[in-house]
């Protein structure tokens, strides 16, 4: 008997009595929040998780806003996959070598969806030059439309595309660890900073 058949047979033998799926209407209690409140809550939570927020009046202000990023000022290792922000100094594609990826100082990518309760931002692989970009970059910036901020994870999952992309990730703040004596250190294996431009 194959391992598959043996495991499925053992599950049948366990004869677990039926149990219905629970009612999920009670799990979300934040409906009806006004959009400005969502943005405010998103920004406050983002600060708590170690990220920074820059609120812009519109996409026109983006160019000026990214100009203050240290890597942009130094004109070093910039990759942008934000369509209206053509500031890339590195040209990367899905076939990028690891050495090329490791050279990314600052990545600027679009976010599809923000979540007010935990400052998570949904990043879709389709918006990335390479899947590794949000993790190998020394510093990260995400451009997120304010109108795409939802209250909680229930709303967020309802809004995700079906079928899901080959790879997608909720990013909340920069990479971090507290594995040595519980001292919080920002910038563990991934980006050392995350700034979110809200447009």
């Amino acid at each position, binding site marked *: 008997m194959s391992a598959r058949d043996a495991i499925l047979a053992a599950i049948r033998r366990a004869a*677990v009595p039926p149990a219905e799926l629970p009612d999920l209407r009670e799990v*979300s209690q934040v409906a009806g929040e006004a959009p400005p409140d969502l943005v405010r809550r998103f920004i406050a939570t983002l600060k708590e998780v170690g990220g920074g927020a820059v609120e812009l009046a519109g996409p026109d202000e983006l160019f000026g806003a990214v100009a203050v990023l240290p890597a942009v000022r130094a004109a070093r290792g910039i990759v942008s996959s934000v369509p209206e922000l053509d500031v890339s100094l590195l040209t990367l594609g899905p076939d990028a070598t690891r050495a090329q990826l490791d050279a990314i100082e600052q990545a600027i990518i679009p976010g599809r969806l923000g979540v007010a309760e935990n400052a998570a931002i949904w990043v879709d692989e389709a918006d990335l030059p390479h899947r*590794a970009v949000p993790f190998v970059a020394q510093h990260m910036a995400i451009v997120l439309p304010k109108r795409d901020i939802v209250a909680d994870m229930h709303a*967020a999952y309802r809004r995700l595309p079906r079928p*899901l992309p080959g790879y997608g990730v909720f990013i909340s703040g920069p990479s971090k*660890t507290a594995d040595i004596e519980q001292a919080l250190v920002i910038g563990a294996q991934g980006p050392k900073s995350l700034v979110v431009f809200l447009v």
Partner: protein
Amino acid sequence: MSHSDAARRFLADQARTTWHDQAVWSFRAKRDRQAYGIPEWEALREAAAGIKAHTMSRLGEYLEEFERNATQNGAVVHWARDAAEHNRIVLEILRNRGATRLVKSKSMLTEECGLNPFLEAHGITVTDTDLGERIVQLSGMGPSHIVAPAIHLRREEVGDLFHRLLGTPEGLSDPTQLTAAARLHLRERFLACDAALTGANFGVAETGGIVVVTNEGNADLGIALAPLHIASMGIEKLIPRLDHLAVFVRLLARSTTGQPISAYTSHVQAPRLGSALHIILVDNGRTAQLARPEFRKSLHCIRCAACLNTCPVFRRSGGYSYGYVLPGPIGQVLAPGVDARAHRDLPFASSLCLSCGDVCPVKVDLPDQLYRWRQRLGEQGLVSGRKRAVMRVMGWVMARPALYERAGVLTRWALRGLPRVVLAAFARTWTAHRELPEAPTEAFRDWYRKRRGAGAAR
């Protein structure tokens, strides 16, 4: 070694015990702040428990649905009955691709399977890439805590380890600088790896995808850089639908480290262009647990470690004292199912204070299971002779109210009248770390009788 002997060793260093207790408790304090910040917290726990119970009732169907969808997404799905089969499959996948350098993110399942020593014995270089995991790997040990693997080590000890093995300056113990050194060391490993292995926090039947959660981004670095991704997943990690993920993602990080969500919640559906994705579905005792109705709910566990962080015994005895890969209350109810004889003392290493049951985000009935294991172990004759004798005497006395009342009188008289040295000789273990209690001036029964009139207490 029994849990109490191992705990005694840990307790020998009192300063470390106190520090460990406080460090672990700080997770619990942060968890409380998050849980109290969400009015629907109890509804979420209820929903999570319900979704898991439902999944377990149709586990076979959902596994087949998951396999179908994952295969359609371009993943290769494997099934492993036990640890040995899982390890063989991993090695075979690596060998087929000629991979020898593996980067690995945290996975309690692979700890359970003893994967690292197996692969190393077969010539694979395994690098654990979570900082805490890397620290314990360099120290030659396994994790002492489910989510904070190196919580038992002080910064100076990590500094020494890094000095000897990674060449950091002698005496360097600043966590920020040590983390920066580890970052450089691990970045080299990421850039040179042939394969990445991750666990899976969740598998979604509806989408055939897996979800991996980290704070460091180490799982994603491996997934996105290596030409091969192997994901090892316990069959109980499955949930039916994508919408259900919201419930679990909201509970997990809040229960674990008191964060509103972990930094990275990654949804892997398909391999990157030109790379391969293998998912191994592992039983290793899970179907046996499924067949035990009174312990079935332990399969709801999402490995958040909230039960460890709240447990007064875990906090003061350390993860290694349990002698099982999962320490704390969840380990205490899972280990006897794996090997009742080897782990027969674990269900007794608890004061049954019920706190673990209160904090569990998926409502595993941990205190009830601890209690039930004690009964089962007793029936199987796996309780030590001394414990059995004491319980028999206690039971005999407690079944006789008049005798019990007189025993109380005697105890109060002894506590008041006998010299400390004599009493200490009777209660050596108790008095080693604390004073005997003050004897109350009267028994509850006497007090009650006085208030309610004679005969009321009968």
